[in-house]
């Protein structure tokens, strides 16, 4: 009887692989990453297979997803960021698929692991920083001194700006991880209440145990919303960082 709310985050190897002393096993986490890739690619390839002028249902979903991310990128990062669309689209769909797959009972949520979310956040951070350097060279450092700052405030402002810049990957990665962790833990805790009530009060306890089940239904709806919103927020912030790198304020 699984009632430990953190048990669901356990990473279990499916195919043990070890390379040079490193454990690179194909785990439940890896399996869901592969599933996410298969689902996203499948949706686009299968949905667009007809290349219909008037789209069917699945093609509409694929096109909607495309237009949604394209609009987000254009409005928040400007038209110049068009060439980064595949990266932003992959980021959004990968996180969205990971979050939503995690809502299936008994599944694994790879976005609830800080290692994954932080790695993605650092990827975004390195990507926009390199982009800014390539476009602006050393002029990039002017980013840390907002225009119009009085000279006597400059040291303080530069420090604040550098700290805020460096905290970007941290907040980006932790936000997604913490949301997924908290949501899934709450679901499990509520579900555990039913079992505990049944354990403590017997048959009557299972009747009262319907209350946490009802609450869980609401929490599941909320978590599906959170799954979409967090994928959106992660991608939106990436778009904004890309604009910062292109325009330097």
């Amino acid at each position, binding site marked *: *009887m*699984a*009632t*430990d709310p*953190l*048990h669901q*985050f*356990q*990473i279990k*190897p499916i195919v043990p*692989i070890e390379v040079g002393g*490193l*454990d*690179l*096993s*194909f*785990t439940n*986490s*890896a399996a869901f*990453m*592969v599933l*996410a*890739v298969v689902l*996203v*690619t499948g949706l*686009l*390839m299968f949905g*667009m297979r007809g*290349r*219909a*002028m008037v*789209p069917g249902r699945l*093609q509409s979903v*694929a*096109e909607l997803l*495309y*237009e949604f991310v394209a609009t987000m990128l254009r409005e928040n990062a400007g038209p110049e960021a068009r060439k980064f*669309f*595949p*990266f932003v*689209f*992959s980021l959004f*769909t*990968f996180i969205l698929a990971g979050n939503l797959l995690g809502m299936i009972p008994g599944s694994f949520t*790879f976005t609830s*692991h*800080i*290692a*994954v979310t932080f*790695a*993605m956040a650092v990827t975004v951070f390195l990507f926009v920083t390199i982009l800014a350097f390539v476009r602006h060279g050393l002029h990039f450092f002017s980013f840390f001194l907002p225009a119009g700052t009085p000279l006597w405030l400059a040291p303080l402002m530069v420090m604040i700006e550098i700290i805020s810049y460096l905290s970007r990957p941290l907040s980006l990665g932790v936000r997604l*991880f913490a949301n997924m*962790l908290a949501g899934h833990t709450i679901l499990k805790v509520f579900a555990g209440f039913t079992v505990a009530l*049944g*354990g*403590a*009060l*017997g*048959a009557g*306890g299972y009747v009262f145990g319907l209350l946490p089940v009802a609450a869980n239904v609401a929490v599941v709806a909320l978590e599906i919303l959170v799954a979409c919103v967090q994928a959106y927020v992660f991608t939106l912030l990436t778009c904004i960082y890309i604009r910062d790198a292109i325009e330097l304020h």
Partner: protein
Amino acid sequence: MSMGELKGLFGRLAAVVLLAFALAGQPAVAFAANEAEKVAEGVAAETAEHVEGGLPQLNVGTYPTQLFWLAITFGLLLFLMSKVALPRVAEVLEARQEKIANDLDRAHSLKAEADGVIQAYEKALADARASAQKVLADAVATTDAETARRQAELAADLAVRAREAEARIGAAKETALSNVRTVSAEAAQAAVARLVGLDLDQARAEAAVDLALKERA
């Protein structure tokens, strides 16, 4: 039923309910204890699985595999999206955009054409109306002229005929008058011969008739 009786009834009812709960509670409590034990066992078993304990997310030992598979799967997704899937979507969307733009263009040109045709039609209609009016006016004018001419002809013809008739009448009158003279002279001759027995010659008789006519005139 009095108030006291009602209270008594409720009291007995409550006692029965309590008794029922107490009796039913015996197995329920036993079941609950059993269940709690099972739950505790389950938690213990799961906790034993956690090698380091605490959050599985903080188990550094799982980081290499997570990062490795993240790099592989995300890299694969990025490749598939940028090389295969997204160009396909873009192609369809562009084709649709182009078709819509083309259709709009064609609709615009067709509308312009239709406007031209309507204009030409209206012009032709106006022209036809004008020429019809002209033809009508011409016809009316021609008819009027013809009528006038024929009336004039008729009038002239009638005048000629009237004059001829008058001349004929005049001639007839002349003839009749001269006949009357001759007949009168002959009658006078015969009357003289009968009455007087005189043979009056014609010249004298005629002179006498002329005289008498002159007197009467």
